[in-house]
C-alpha cells in the first residue's frame, strides 16, 4: 500500500471494541456515519468542561472564550473548503442545510427565488435528503422537478443536458459522490450549463467532503452541504456553505435570536451572513468538535486519505470480481469513483448478507440507502454497501471478502 495510515487507527476508541462473541470490529459503514478520533471527542467535552456558555450573548469571560472557539471553528471550516469565513453556516446536518436552502430559495422575498414556471433539476441518484426538499419546494411554488437519469453502469447520463438544463432552470441540485455507487460526479459541464442560464448549483458533498479535498472556488458551485458526523466530527452538526453574493440576497429559513438586526412586534430585519442563518444558541460544542476533526484530517492530509481509500476500493473491487454470484452495483473500475461499494449476492437478501457479516464483526449497511427511486430504477430491493474511511485497512477488506464467502456458505448459494 502506497500510503500507510495504519498508525491512525488507534486514535479511534470504538475500533478497539470486540463485538458478537469476541470478534474485532470491522467498521465498513462510514458512508452512514464515520467514527471519531479521541481528539474530536475531547474537543467537544473540553468545551463543556472549560468554556461552556452562550456565544455572542454574554458580557463575561466564558462567553468571550466560547465565541472565540465557535468563530475559530468557522474560520477553520472555511479554510477547509477554500471559502470565506462568513460564507460558512453551521447547521445540524446536511439534511438541514439542504432544506434550509430550499426554503430560502422558495421565499418570495429572496432575490433568487423559485416560482411557478421555473424548473428544478436533480438526478436519479440523489439521496432522499437532496431529493425530497426539492420535491416539496416544487410543490410549494408550482415549479417543476426534472432530473438526470443514470446509465446502467451507475454514471450520470448527461446526454440530454441541453434539454434538462434550460432557460427555465433555476436550481440544479446534485450529489458530488453517489452514496450507493461511489460514483464521483464531474461537475464542470453541469456548472457551466447551469450558470449559463442563470441557475444556482447546490452540491450535496456528504460523500465527498469527508474523503477528498474540496475547493469551492474551483468547483464554482453556489451552495454546498455536508455533515460533520461523516467527517470524523460529532453528530448534530452540519455545514451549509453559500457564495456570499447569494447569501446576501436570500432570506433565512430559521428565525429567532441572534439572527436579527432589529425586531418589532410586527416584523424583523436580519443580520448579515452567517448570523442571519444561525438562529438561536448554536450547537457550539459540536462546531468546536468538527473543527478538531478538520485539524485531524489536515494533519493526515486529504490527498493521502483519498489515495488510501482508492487502494482499499481497488482491492475490494478486485476481490468481489472473483466471487461468483456477487454483483457490484455501480462502477466496476476505479475511474471517478470513491470508497463506497454496493453489491448484491445472488439468492441472499441484502439484509441477510449484512446479518451474517455482522456475526463476524463486519459492520456494513444494507437496504435502499435512502435512495429509493434509484433502487427502483435498478430493479433492486436493496444492496449491501461497504464504505471506507482513513481508519480502514487491507485486512478489513480481506475479512469482508472472507465474510461474503461465509454468507454464501451459510445460505447455501453458489459454489
Amino acid at each position, binding site marked *: 500500500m502506497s500510503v500507510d495510515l495504519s498508525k491512525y487507527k488507534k486514535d479511534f476508541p470504538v475500533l478497539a471494541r470486540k463485538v*458478537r*462473541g469476541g470478534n474485532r470490529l470491522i467498521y465498513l459503514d462510514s458512508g452512514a456515519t464515520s467514527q471519531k478520533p479521541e481528539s474530536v471527542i475531547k474537543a467537544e467535552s473540553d468545551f463543556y468542561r472549560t468554556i461552556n456558555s452562550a456565544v455572542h450573548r454574554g458580557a463575561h469571560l466564558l462567553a468571550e472564550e466560547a465565541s472565540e472557539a465557535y468563530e475559530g471553528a468557522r474560520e477553520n471550516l472555511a479554510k477547509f473548503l477554500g471559502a470565506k469565513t462568513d460564507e460558512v453556516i453551521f447547521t445540524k446536518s446536511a439534511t438541514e442545510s439542504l432544506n434550509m436552502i430550499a426554503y430560502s430559495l422558495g421565499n418570495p422575498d429572496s432575490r433568487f427565488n423559485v416560482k411557478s414556471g421555473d424548473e428544478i433539476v436533480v438526478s436519479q441518484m440523489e439521496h432522499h435528503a437532496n431529493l425530497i426538499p426539492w420535491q416539496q419546494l416544487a410543490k410549494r411554488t408550482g415549479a417543476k422537478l426534472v432530473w438526470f437519469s443514470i446509465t446502467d453502469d451507475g454514471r450520470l447520463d448527461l446526454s440530454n443536458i441541453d434539454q434538462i438544463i434550460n432557460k427555465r432552470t433555476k436550481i440544479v441540485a446534485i450529489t458530488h459522490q453517489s452514496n450507493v455507487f461511489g460514483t464521483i460526479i464531474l461537475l464542470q459541464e453541469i456548472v457551466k450549463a447551469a450558470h449559463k442560464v442563470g441557475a444556482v448549483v447546490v452540491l450535496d458533498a456528504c460523500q465527498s467532503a469527508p474523503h477528498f479535498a474540496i475547493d469551492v472556488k474551483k468547483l464554482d458551485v453556489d451552495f454546498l452541504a455536508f455533515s460533520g458526523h461523516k467527517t470524523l466530527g460529532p453528530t448534530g452538526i452540519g455545514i451549509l456553505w453559500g457564495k456570499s453574493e447569494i447569501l446576501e440576497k436570500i432570506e433565512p429559513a430559521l428565525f429567532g435570536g441572534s439572527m436579527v438586526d432589529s425586531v418589532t412586534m410586527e416584523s424583523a430585519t436580519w443580520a448579515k451572513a452567517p448570523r442571519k442563518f444561525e438562529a438561536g444558541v448554536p450547537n457550539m460544542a459540536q462546531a468546536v468538535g468538527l473543527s478538531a476533526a478538520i485539524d485531524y484530517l489536515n494533519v493526515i492530509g486529504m490527498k493521502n486519505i483519498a489515495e488510501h481509500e482508492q487502494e482499499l476500493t481497488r482491492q475490494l473491487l478486485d476481490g468481489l470480481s472473483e466471487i461468483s454470484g456477487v454483483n457490484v452495483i455501480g462502477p466496476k473500475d476505479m475511474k471517478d469513483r470513491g470508497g463506497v461499494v454496493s453489491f448484491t449476492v445472488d439468492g441472499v*437478501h*441484502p*439484509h*441477510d448478507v449484512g*446479518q*451474517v457479516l455482522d*456475526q463476524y464483526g463486519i459492520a456494513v449497511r*444494507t*437496504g*435502499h440507502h435512502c435512495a*429509493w427511486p434509484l*433502487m427502483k430504477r435498478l430493479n433492486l*430491493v*436493496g444492496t449491501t454497501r461497504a464504505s471506507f474511511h482513513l481508519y480502514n485497512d487491507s485486512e478489513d477488506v480481506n475479512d469482508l471478502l472472507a465474510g461474503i464467502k461465509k454468507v454464501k456458505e*451459510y*445460505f447455501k448459494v453458489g459454489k
Partner: protein
Amino acid sequence: MELDSLYQEVILDHYRKPLHKGLSAAKDIQVHHNNPSCGDEVTLNLIMDGQVVKDISWDGVGCSISMASASVMSDLLIGKEYKSAMVISDAFVELMQSKGKSSGDEQLLEDGVAFAGVSKFPARIKCALLGWMAFKDASTQVIA
C-alpha cells in the same frame, strides 16, 4: 453460533418454499405494508367467512425473516376464528418483544416459535412482524 438462533432451519425452509405466496384472484380486502427502513414489502389478500379466516394469500419482496414469517403466519391463521387468530397474533408479537427470554408457546404458534431468536436482534423484529401487521390491518378492516 448466535446466528443459528436467528436463522432456524424452519425459517430458511419457509424462506425457500414460502406457503400461500402468490396473490389469489378473489379477496375481501387487499392491504400493502412496507418497512421503509429496509424496503421490504408485503401485499396481502384476505377472505373472511363470517368470523373465520377463509383464505390468506400474499406476495412480497424482503429478507428471509420477513418472507418466512409471512409464510408461517398465513399457514397458521387460515381456517382460524378471527378471535383465535388475534390471540395467536398477539402471542407472536409478545414473543418478538421478549428479548430472547421466551421460547414461545408451540401449541399456539407452531412453526412460529422458530422466530424466538429474532427477538434478540432488535433490527429484525420489524421484519418478522411485517406479514402479521398486514394481516392484523386487513382483518380488522373486514371485521369492523
